[in-house]
């Protein structure tokens, strides 16, 4: 059964190493002026690295990769719910100034 999958210490150590590399990348992306291209690009870069770190933790450390499909569905559901929260909240911020044709949303630049 997938629930009894044993993850070896080697796998954990590899995962730890990947996380360390990703952390180093986060710091480089934040501090190295050469990579300061624009706010949007830097945000995308930071979020991409963060998502990669998150996946390492959820899939390996939290064993979702080795679990049943039901567990995967519930793990995904959490993200689906997060998307609902973010989408509808940002809908408000994005459209707050639409009814005033001359105003520009301070949230969107």
């Amino acid at each position, binding site marked *: 059964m997938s629930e009894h999958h044993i993850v070896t210490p080697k796998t954990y150590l590899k995962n730890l190493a990947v996380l360390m590399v990703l952390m180093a990348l986060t710091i480089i992306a934040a501090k190295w002026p050469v990579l300061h291209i624009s706010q949007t690009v830097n945000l995308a870069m930071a979020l991409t690295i963060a998502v990669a770190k998150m996946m390492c933790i959820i899939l390996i450390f939290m064993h979702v990769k080795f679990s049943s499909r039901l567990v995967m569905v*519930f793990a995904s559901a959490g993200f689906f719910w997060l998307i609902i929260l973010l989408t509808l909240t940002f809908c408000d911020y994005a459209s707050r100034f*639409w009814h005033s044709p001359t105003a520009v949303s301070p949230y969107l630049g």
Partner: protein
Amino acid sequence: MSTEHLVEPSADFPVRDYGPPRVHYLNWRHTIASWLLSRDHKRIGIMYLVSISIFFVVGSLFAAIFRLELLTPEGDFLQADTYNKFFTLHGVVMIFFFLIPSIPAVLGNFLIPLMIGAKDVAFPKLNLASWYIFMVGGTIGVAIILLGGLDTGWTFYTPLSSSYANTHVFLAAMLVFITGFSSILTGLNFLVTIHKMRAPGLTWFRLPLFIWAHYATSVIQVLGTPVLAITVFLVGIERIWGVGIFDPALGGDPILFQHMFWFYSHPAVYIMILPGMGVISEVIACFSRNRVFGYEFIAFSSVAIAIIGFLVWGHHMYVSGQSMYANLVFSLLTMLVAVPSAIKIFNWTATLYKGNVIWETPMLYAVGFIGLFGIGGGTGLFLGTTGLDVPLHDTYFVVAHFHYVMVGGMVMAYLAGIHFWWPKITGKMYAQTPAKISAIVVFVGFNFTFFPQFLAGWNGMPRRYHSYNADFQIWNVLSTAGATVLGIGFLMPAFYLGWSLFFGKDAGSNPWGARGLEWEACTSPPIPHNFEEIPVVTQEAYAYTGEETVSV
């Protein structure tokens, strides 16, 4: 009685009526430690019953005090800030310590394993831990009351809560954070139990609708509650360390708090009402001796409410500064969420049609639920429309609306459930006449209390003020008088249910002639591990023939 049974009759399950067992979950150990360290879902359910009953009394006393204040237009009994504390504490205690845990933690804990033919929940230790976490939250609640209270309203709106309130906001944030985990762990336990521990033959579409309702509720608890925990955590961070999250002076946005708060707190309304709907399905089916009309529709409507309920939170924020376009989207989605609720109401009514309706006490509460929830839900649509909400926002119309849903709906359902399963929980039958009188007194007292509030609100009386325009006094006098009647109605069960514990006659395993594993394969009270042998289910739920008899 019918010869058809949900459980295949066999040597192990001869047919009902099992007499009271010599050893059952109530008498198999007598020490305090055997209760406080019990991993038996039934004992944990009873511990929740006692705890939330105490909190219900405390919350009701707060309401009684501010209803007294509202008898006259002047603030002559409570000062403004004291009044603020009383309505805040009433809300916090009732929502976090009564409405949210009541049906899931008491009836859900007690009944889910019995209904699905399991010996306990999936994680019994976690179940006990949930109760302790709940009690830690409750202790913080008591500390807040003793230390001087809280005055932010149960909604903790920023910047009042983060920057201005001088009461115990940080403790309250801790309370919400900690109590939330009790709710999350209970939901998690139920999800795993329902997925993994159903008896052989108990397929998804043979499950009682009570189980479907609890499944949907658990999904909300697990996926929604963490957002509230994060939100109050952020309020705490801003309050203590001045990190700008919600305070505009620090670069934050107070409306962001409302988005995050209502993302949980609107679905929380469904945490409160969905299990109640599950109770009503059981009671209506039993006392109309009819198969539930449109079983699949009611089952899926619970799931639909759990999902769509997460898309409507913005309808609390039409006048907050949220964009008018977001208002329109949330308003449309709000109309959508009414559909599954309406499906349930229509299907319960259709179940009554051509049924053999029996007016026992639980049925009186259940029928009361349908009417009052109908009014509460209908007025919710008034408030869900963007235009009408503007004049009605923050008036007593809103107060009346949510009390029709929460008290008229959820508390009526809770009382229906307590009266329905009391013989199973205790093995004793209560006196029917005072119970029926109590159901009628609660119904009358409830309408007497809250209907005048619709009229006061419609005429413009704002909520959360200790003094008001003298024109509104008539509605407030009526409401306070009604609250007195309602209080008597709520007190009555304490007496006749308490009496039944000592002097009630043995209920027998199935006094209502009901269908379901908890009635047909289980003694009253149940034995410590519920079943001598796990039952095998061979029929769908609610296979009533109309020939079952009531023996109370």
